[in-house]
């Protein structure tokens, strides 16, 4: 997006933040998570992947605030570093998904006709396959690793973003300024960027926050099933999977990543709720 379209959005976002308490709380929670992930090496002196068998399965103490897991790794350090994987992969995946979905959705609304019809059918067919199965097949085919997971998430979620954006763009396409731009002989891409996009930024932003919360959940589920982050990577879903069996011995080792995961998603959901309410985007209906 160019500076031309960004400036009014920033101003509007600032006004929204002053009025919507929900959005402020949500974004603040997300910001805290980002800060923690960035400052993880400062906040803890432990190495999140260093094994120490003499310290395995300890409860919370002064030296290990949240105890240790079965390999003697510090749970707090793993939780703090875990945000890096969760945030890094999900923000990249969501950016790619929403960007692709926005472009395709706008193009479908703008072009209409057979392109729109065929696209709608294909997207419906993709949506009919369960996302977990599609993810598993893609990850099995291309191997694990952050870039594959980003790609897999995009394949699974782009159809839904396309539908939402297409719906929002359809409301803009009949407007006089779009007709005028067409009459001026501007190309599809120019109309898309200068006339349509600035008018659906609110929908796209809400979609981003909402989609991000789903992506975080999906990535953690994938890690939990053993198809996401490779061990010893510190990742919350993986931590729950590893420490679940010892949950009666060291409950904190499972609870800490759960709390981290839940607060991040609650933050994203609150942000999506607050923004959609402040901007009048019907979030629940958009979401489906």
């Amino acid at each position, binding site marked *: 997006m160019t500076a031309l379209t960004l400036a009014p959005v920033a101003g509007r976002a600032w006004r929204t933040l002053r009025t919507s308490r929900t959005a402020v709380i949500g974004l603040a929670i997300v910001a805290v998570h980002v800060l923690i992930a960035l400052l993880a090496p400062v906040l803890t002196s432990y190495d999140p992947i260093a094994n120490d068998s003499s310290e395995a399965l300890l409860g919370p103490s002064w030296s290990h605030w949240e105890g240790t897991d079965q390999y003697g790794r510090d749970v707090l350090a793993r939780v703090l570093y875990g945000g890096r994987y969760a945030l890094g992969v999900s923000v990249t995946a969501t950016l790619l998904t929403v960007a692709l979905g926005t472009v395709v959705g706008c193009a479908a609304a703008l072009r209409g006709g057979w392109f729109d019809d065929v696209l709608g059918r294909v997207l419906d067919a993709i949506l009919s396959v369960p996302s977990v199965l599609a993810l598993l097949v893609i990850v099995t085919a291309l191997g694990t690793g952050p870039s594959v997971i980003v790609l897999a998430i995009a394949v699974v979620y782009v159809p839904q973003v396309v539908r939402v954006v297409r719906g929002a763009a359809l409301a803009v396409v009949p407007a006089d300024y779009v007709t005028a731009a067409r009459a001026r002989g501007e190309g599809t891409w120019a109309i898309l960027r200068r006339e349509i996009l600035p008018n659906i930024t609110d929908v796209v932003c809400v979609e981003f926050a909402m989609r991000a919360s789903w992506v975080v959940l999906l990535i953690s589920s994938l890690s939990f099933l053993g198809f996401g982050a490779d061990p010893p990577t510190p990742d919350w879903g993986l931590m729950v999977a590893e420490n679940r069996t010892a949950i009666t011995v060291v409950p904190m080792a499972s609870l800490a990543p759960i709390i981290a995961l839940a607060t991040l998603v609650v933050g994203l959901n609150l942000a999506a709720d607050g923004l959609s309410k402040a901007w009048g985007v019907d979030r*629940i209906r958009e979401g489906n």
Partner: protein
Amino acid sequence: MLSFVARRIAAAFGTLLLSSVLVFLAVQALPGDVATQVLGKDATPDAVAALRTQLGLDQPAWERYFDWVRGALHGDFGTSLVSGKAVGGEVSLYLGNSALIALITVLFAVTGSIVLGIVAGLYRDRWPDHLISTVSLVGMSVPEFVVATVLVLCFSVALPWFPAVVLYGPEASVGQLLPAVWLPALALAIVMAAYIVRMTRTSVIDVMAGEYVTTARLKGLSTWRVVTRHALPSALLPTLHVIALNVAWLAGGVAVVENVFNYPGIGKLMLSSVQNRDLPVIQAIALVSAVVYVCCNLAADLAAMALNPKLRTRGRTR
């Protein structure tokens, strides 16, 4: 109206056909030759070639696709590469076990969340609404495996009421599986209910602000009658689609929860067949899920049409 129904059903078949092509292509794209995988790396080229002929892998892709679809229409999905059994029978065995969970989940989630959503909508911005909205926000913010883990901690470890894992195989009877069904169903219902509660709440608020509800109130009808007879039928209309989508989501959503509880259902079969690259089984599961998705959407559309006279005359709905 009849032509609308016919068109909607035709569209559903079109979608299904397209998804079968996509599923077939996606599974073909999985790396590794099936014949080499079955026989192992040390197999002689002759043996590999013989198995390729036997599995029909030497045919062109489109011919194999038509063979597969023709078989699937007759209930023949080929044989599993791992167990050597007929895929159709194996999948339906696991599917039946999952249907047990799905049935209980849908029953709990739909009734519970509609009631909660209506209460939240009617008491908008008062404490019942705040409580229900907060709980549903948390419900949609935690993944299924977390809900399942917490439930195990509460109702299997702290209070030993339900088994934490299932020890039976796929052939277990309903009676053997029944004690183990409740926790997975509850976990799925909690995650699923969060969305339906929010949708119901919003549409109840929308409808209660409508003019015909005000008219009904001014006529002097009791609140109970206004809500049940005038507001609810139209308030539940948009909720239908969310319910349909969530039921369709169950087809994939069970994967995580079933693995937490080691429940012998379609989700567990899905995971193990992906791990073993059991292509015929993956294809069959994907196709069955697509059928469930398309049927749920079709049912929601037709039900919405039956409830809403306006939709009957309009050309198409989305």
